[in-house]
């Protein structure tokens, strides 16, 4: 019974073999890139944004004759936000479908297991999500985090801005409500370290779990000490819930920085009400109208293919697109896009992308900085550093309005 059942199962699996053939080796006319994304569940939104970015780049390069003359196809599979599935997916992509290259997964919690598999088979691992400290502690020399800075450092630009203000204008007290996850709390912690060193008093600092359905009690406690600045280590829906709680508690701080969630150009105003976004800061690596190479073209192609305006493009799409730009440059420079070449090439020098110039240390941690963005007149605009700013920062956050 057992034997026949096993044979049955093996048959089921093998039956899938015939369906999808990746291109094996360099002789073929196509170049297949495998990606595992969380297309269902909590990370489905950013996962799909990343998918659009990858596909857009593939269309872009194919319209220009392909990468080194090869037509690029992106094979996307779903990992259900499960480490078990992500192991299956990358093993399948690499050893069954024989894809030529892989990009990193979304959700970011799956980056470490996936990166290990890629390393084992000698694959380069460009990943636009998953920049927590523990990922770099894995010391994967094939991994490149395709954002300007590691997650821990993404809020530094807000600290830079606040500490650049004259002492009289700086906040005196601060509250730090953060989501307990690898990509949120560390941002608020890093800002807090610098604020405390500069004499800004911490009146609240606390974590809330991912499943906290209700943040009103957290925010009620956070504002009990009347903080001048609220620094939120937020991720997505929790950012919306924080803002809604503050509105209902009728408390508007002088400064408000949210590490993530508030930098989602479509979702954030939709969830908290467009009139309540004014003055909120966040960090971003890409923005509409960015002068970086390829950005304008990216925006044009994106709005042409998916509709909407440049303002509405999710940065996850831009980050995914940047992975492709890096491949293009490696190909242009070396005339090859095999994994070993990609790894050795990207480890030296700096690489211009629509996210700015990227460079990495040996563990794949990027060395650049983010931009400070702020909601001004219903738009998310870069406001600091001055060199790339499109608007001067609003010094005081306007009151809630709605």
């Amino acid at each position, binding site marked *: 019974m057992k034997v026949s059942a096993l044979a049955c199962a093996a048959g089921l699996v093998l039956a899938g073999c015939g369906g999808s053939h990746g291109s094996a080796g360099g002789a073929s006319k196509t170049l297949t890139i495998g990606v595992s994304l969380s297309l*269902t569940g909590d990370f489905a939104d950013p996962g799909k944004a990343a998918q659009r970015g990858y596909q857009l780049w593939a269309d872009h390069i194919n319209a220009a004759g392909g990468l080194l003359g090869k037509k690029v196809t992106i094979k996307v599979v779903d990992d259900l936000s499960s480490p078990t599935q992500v192991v*299956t997916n990358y*093993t399948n992509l*690499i050893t069954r479908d024989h894809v030529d290259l892989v990009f990193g997964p979304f959700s970011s919690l799956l980056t470490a297991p996936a990166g290990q598999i890629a390393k084992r088979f000698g694959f380069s691992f460009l990943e636009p999500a998953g920049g927590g400290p523990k990922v770099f502690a894995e010391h994967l020399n094939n991994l490149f985090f395709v954002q300007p800075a590691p997650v821990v450092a993404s809020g530094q630009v807000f600290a830079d801005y606040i500490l650049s203000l004259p002492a009289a204008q700086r906040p005196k007290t601060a509250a730090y409500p953060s989501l307990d996850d690898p990509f949120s709390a*560390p941002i608020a912690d890093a800002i807090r370290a610098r604020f405390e060193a500069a004499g800004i008093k911490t009146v609240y600092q606390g974590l809330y779990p991912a499943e906290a359905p209700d943040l009103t009690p957290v925010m009620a406690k956070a504002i009990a000490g009347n903080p001048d600045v609220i620094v939120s280590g937020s991720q997505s829906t929790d950012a919306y819930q924080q803002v809604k709680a503050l509105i209902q508690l009728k408390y508007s701080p002088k400064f408000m920085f949210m590490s993530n969630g508030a930098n989602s150009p479509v979702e954030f105003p939709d969830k908290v009400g467009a009139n309540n976004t004014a003055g909120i800061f966040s960090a971003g690596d890409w923005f509409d109208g960015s002068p970086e190479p390829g950005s304008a073209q990216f925006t044009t192609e994106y709005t042409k293919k998916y509709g909407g305006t440049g303002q509405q493009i999710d940065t996850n799409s831009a980050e995914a697109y940047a992975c492709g730009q890096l491949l293009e440059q490696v190909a242009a420079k070396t005339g090859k896009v095999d994994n070993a070449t990609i790894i050795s090439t990207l480890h030296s020098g700096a690489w211009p992308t629509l996210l700015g110039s990227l460079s990495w240390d040996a563990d794949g941690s990027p060395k650049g900085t983010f931009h400070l963005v702020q909601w001004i007149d219903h738009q998310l605009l870069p406001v600091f550093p001055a060199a790339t700013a499109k608007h001067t920062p609003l010094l005081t956050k306007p009151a809630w309005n709605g």
Partner: protein
Amino acid sequence: MTRGGLSRAGVLAVVLAVLPLALPQHWVVSMLVFTVMYAALASSWNLIGGFAGYPSLGHAAFFGFGAYTVALIFPNTHNLSNGLLPFAILPGIAVVAGLIGLPIGAIAMRTRADVFAIVTITLLFVAQTLALNLRSLTGGAQGAGVAVPPFDVANFERPFYYAMAVLLLVAMGAGWYSQRSKIGLSLAAVRADEDKARGIGVHVTGVKLLAFSVSVGITAMIGGVWAYYVDFVYPQFAFDPLITIGMVLMAFLGGRGTLWGPVIGAVVLVPAQQYLAYELGGSQLYLIAYALVFLLIMRFLPRGILPTLTHLRRRRRLIAAADPAPRTAAAELGLAHDGQGGARV
């Protein structure tokens, strides 16, 4: 009967040993790792959930315990000279988990059936919260990296596969033993009517606790192997209700309280799930397909695959027999419903 059991066990052991040699592709062996893992999980769950009739939903707490123990003893800063070392501590993990399981089982098994299920799932969430909040020990939400296995790439998955296969044999061995021995009789009595069992002098508490303890001990070892294989643990993945649900589903699907049911459940469900997610994930149809497979099986084989098949076979035999009087058939049916004895293959 015993000879038949032994020969079947021999066949299983040989099949398990040969499979990765016959199908050596990485992706096949990797899928086999997870299939055998779930077969082992479902079989160990079956010891308490099937044979003793206590449907625990908290086994993932022990799975996570095993996973975190391996991750904390062999962190990713650790350079493993011998890749088999993490496997060597598994028996120790089993003993500790089994001992932890004793008081927990003693308290939880004061309740029965549905309430027991809820009490145990509560334990799972308590364990997950502890893993998240005891940051200095576990690393909290940041997760914990496990030492990289220094195995040869060509046969990388094999050690994990064989570790899982051994654990499956252990779990099935425990199941087989508990069916044949006095302990098994006691468990069956507990499942049928606990109070009556106590009345006729069965050491109800003792056998229940033994079954619970062995069951969670094996589960913890499986968690340890899993952590070593996937390389990185987070509280939400190591203490995942879906792992609990997975093992319970497979046991139910194949036929709980039977020796082979959980294995069959896993062999059907795991490849189907992994395959559907891989192939259909991009089109969002995965969940619908998975749920449909599930609902259809529950709709047409509500008692699990194995018991239903056995039942059908028996009925066919009965109808083929000389006296096809509907009454007798009905009586026989009723009998098959009551005792699950006929379902044991």
